[in-house]
């Protein structure tokens, strides 16, 4: 097998925040009844996490689970373990009506970090990113300027941003513009 390469192959930029394409991330879209015990167990076995509630994200490093919609989760696993984890999940879910599908390569993932990271995101997403309103443990499916994106916080000044792979370059350029030197807003 040839070496898989992420959309921008770890490109990075330093401005008022640091923007890095963070490489390949294993991702499984799970659709099903989120209150189903079988599904909850499959999620727990794959990630060690419970099923998140609305707008919650339970992520440690490259493993975790994010709420996407009332019947959809995004399960994160290390890229190298994807096939094994997906097979285990598919197996565990075989008795219930659910869908688990690999979307790892359909996405690009960015890390946006630094004191102004909140402001950089708030220039592009119509989301209240004040510390009172948005904290680690939460996720928003929203947009960055003209494309769909989702993001959560790894810690108090680090965001992880997920977009479609085809939009990776657009999102990287957007984040660069939003993080340009001298553009601190000074509110967060």
């Amino acid at each position, binding site marked *: *097998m040839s070496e898989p390469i992420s959309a921008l192959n770890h490109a990075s930029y330093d401005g008022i925040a640091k923007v890095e394409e963070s490489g390949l991330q294993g991702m499984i879209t799970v659709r099903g009844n989120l209150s189903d015990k079988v599904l909850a167990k499959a999620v727990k076995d794959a990630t060690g996490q419970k099923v998140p509630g609305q707008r919650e994200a339970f992520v440690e490093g490259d493993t975790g689970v994010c709420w996407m919609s009332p019947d959809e989760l995004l399960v994160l696993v290390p890229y190298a373990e994807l096939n094994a984890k997906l097979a285990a999940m598919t197996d565990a879910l075989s008795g219930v*009506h659910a869908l688990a599908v690999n979307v790892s390569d359909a996405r690009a993932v960015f890390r946006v970090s630094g004191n102004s990271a909140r402001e950089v995101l708030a220039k592009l997403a119509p989301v209240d990113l004040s510390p009172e309103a948005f904290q680690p443990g939460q996720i928003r499916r929203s947009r960055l300027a003209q494309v769909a994106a989702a993001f959560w916080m790894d810690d108090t000044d680090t965001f992880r941003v997920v977009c479609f*792979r085809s939009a990776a*370059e657009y999102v990287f350029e957007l984040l660069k513009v939003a993080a340009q030197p001298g553009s601190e807003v000074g509110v967060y």
Partner: protein
Amino acid sequence: MSSRLAKQGRLIDRSKPVTFSFNGNSMQGYEGDTLASALLANDQMMVGRSFKYHRPRGVVASGAEEPNALVGLGQGNRFEPNQRATTTELFNGLTAISQNHWPSLEFDIGSVNTALARFLPAGFYYKMFIHPKPFWKHIYEPFIRQSAGLGKAPDKDSRDADTYEHFYSFADVLVIGGGIAGLQSAKAAALSGAKVMLIEQTAHWGGRTLVDGGTVGGKPVDKFVEQLVSELETMDNVTMRTRCMGAGVYDHGYVLGYERLSDHRPGTQGPRHRLWRIRAKQVVTATGAIERPLSFAGNDVPGVMLASAMRDYVVNWGVTPGQRVVIATNNDDAYRTAIALKQVGVNVIRVVDTRATAGPMAEEVRQLGVRVDPGKAIAKVKGGKRVKNVQLCNQDGIGGAREEIECDAVAMSGGWSPVVHLWSHCGGKLIWDDANAYFRPDPKRPPLGANGDGFVVAAGSSNGHLSLGEVIADAHAAGKAAAKAAGFKPKNTRAPSGEAAEEAPMEAIWLMPANAEVQLRMKSWLDFQNDVKVSDVQLAAREGYESVEHTKRYTTLGMATDQGKLSNINGLAILADSLDSDIPKVGTTTFRPPYTPISLGAIGGEARGEVFQPIRRTPMHDWHDANGADWEPVGQWRRPYAYVRPGESVHDAVNREVKNTRDNLGILDASTLGKLIVKGPDAGKFLDMLYTNMMSTLKVGKCRYGLMCSENGFLIDDGVVARIDEDTWLCHTTTGGAERIHAHMEEWLQTEWWDWKVYVANVTEQYAQVAVVGPNARKVLEKLGGMDVSKDALPFMEWRDGKIGDFDCRAYRISFSGELSYEIAVPASQGQAFWDALFAAGQKFGVMPYGTECLHILRAEKGFIMIGDETDGTVIPQDLGLHWALSKKKEDYLGKRAHSRSHMTDPDRWKLVGLETVDGSVIPDGAYAVGEGVNANGQRNMIGRVTSTYFSANLGKGIAMGLVKNGPDRMGEIIEFPGTDDKIYKVKIVDPVFFDKDGEKQNV
């Protein structure tokens, strides 16, 4: 003459001189000046010319309401026309040019228009330019183009040097306006714990109270403001921004704030403007009030200025607009200007007060030695480029028995109008206040939010309170009310008490003198920028314009870039008088955002250059780009149209690719095709409803081509469906259809068939998909090794999972070209590596990448339809001869019922045929076929149109498809397609399959 005073100027720093230029002349100002104050300091009284008559124009105001002092600011990539000098902060190296004159500001040919004023009355556009018809093109339009218009457009080769951005912000209470009312409101709201944002359009807090003075809680007002600002700055729940204008108030508490970050220091790092996109639970508009001009003859001569503006220039910037000043007023506030001028030693020659008896402030001014004439008015101001003298008369009368006095500046005050714009943007209503002669917000009818309650509270003078004591009390109450409405408990605090000089009631004066004769009314300006005079509005009324909105458009009153901030109330008062009606009955025109013009850059935000629009890229995008791709936009994707080699035209490249794919081997990046996973116990049933043909019966491992119709029966998409396992299907969509069809599926599942057990996921971008096409397709795959792709192991319209070379893949044996063809899907992150491997292995088999045009030609040679070419939203499968794909076994599917409607079964519907010119040429794209006779409009009757047309290098001639009336019954007939090149194309109707009719090439 206007000049800098020796003292005064609380906003300027005399230790920091600034050099700037106006019309190429170098001038000096100080840090803290506005361009307007600096121009006045340099005795530049005249700053531009008016729109219609090219009359000399001087600075008339000191803020956002300024109609006259518009300049072209900056140079080259930073040049911007129509910038208000009164809101432009001075900086070193600023360059400004005046506008609307030719050849120069001092000498202007267009000013001859003023002599023609009698022939350019209200509505002259509508009256003059109707007859005779040819005059428009040859006489009127060239004349108007030469003489009309304000600033110059930037040079077409220049590009904005700056960047811009948006910022999304959320607040419980947003206070717009950082004057004393806004500051007090913000504090009252913030004490409740609410999250408060306070924005101010100028660079300074405190507003005009700091000019007008007074005391609050026994303290001088400037100390009070200083303390208030520092208190707010220490509160964690308060965000404060200067140079940030509240531009518009919209539904659901959405407000736009326009922050000018570097207009006062161009070229500094970071964005120039930031557009704040604010969601506020409650909005407090503390936007102040604007003084009204008085309507007297010659009120537009440079040197005539609002009384409040005149004292702003004195107090804020240490500039006096004149040395000998006459003041005209109908209220006490203007006396503050007399006092301010006297205090700096300017000679105030006379105050004419329309009121029969002047109030207590008049007495104070008399004490300073200024003559005050009650019951008097200005009949006329004389002077061209600056004021020379004024003629005074009685206010009651027609303007006779004038006394002439020499002066070089006139201050006028017609009373104040609350700035109700932001209150009104989203539907707040106004009431007329007779005592003060203004419209103010009606607190009973605020703009309503989603729950039916008001979400805007007006505060201070924008709420109609003009005295300091009332302003503070009202603002305090407004802040508390807004906090309460936002769900907070306001602190039980009382407003500090404000005190200012006592004022006598004003008198509503709309014309000066009251019965001014027509010669005076023709020179009494209402709208300075657009040249609308009292006589114009009166004429409009006589001609039957009763609605204020119609009068506005007929006369152009209030239609200039200042949107009538000075002129609207005066104009509609004249209209009401002319109609013998009341002002509130006539009503106002609509207040629309933005409050003052905001830059297009700010509206666009980050969307320019690289990120103007998203461009979607496949994993092989860079390879295509490096290998000559001539790009074609397909939705937001970019796909190679053809790969152009050095020395080739695009057409040459297409022809080469078309031949090579049929003769040897072509590879196509098909990654953009939509891929939707549909899974669940009811997935088969669901797909049977979505596709016109049967999908539930498809065997695992097999593929089937399917059509999708809307519920109205029209074709919306097509593609190959593969059955993955018992419960799972993979549906290919068109490139442009992936998101749309995904949404279509979700909509039906969520709204109609919510109880069906089906889940859908869009996995389009998970895969890089490559079409391997041509007689050598199998050979190249076999050379790479891995799974068995032989005719028997992987028959036509089947798929297999396996390995090709090193790559895990899914191989589909499908063909859109009529050739032996595979589509190989690999994980996107290995797409480029797979493409490279194919390309290397394909060298000995004559591999060439091909683009979308080749794809189109190959499918057209085979008569395959393309969604978006053969379909346009009005085409049904029956039109395209696709009856075979319409299931007769199924009880129902989307579109089935629609297909039985009378119009859908009409035998005269145009139907798909092949088209071939008699001479082998290519029919122009979009051409229509003409039949016998003409229609009701005298146009030739149409009998068909071309849907796809190409040159086929394989066949050596033009081929096309089209929809023709009774087409399939007319095989062999010749019909005519007139081209736009004056040629009439004679075209034979033929079978749409031009190449390999029996499908032998793909069946190997």
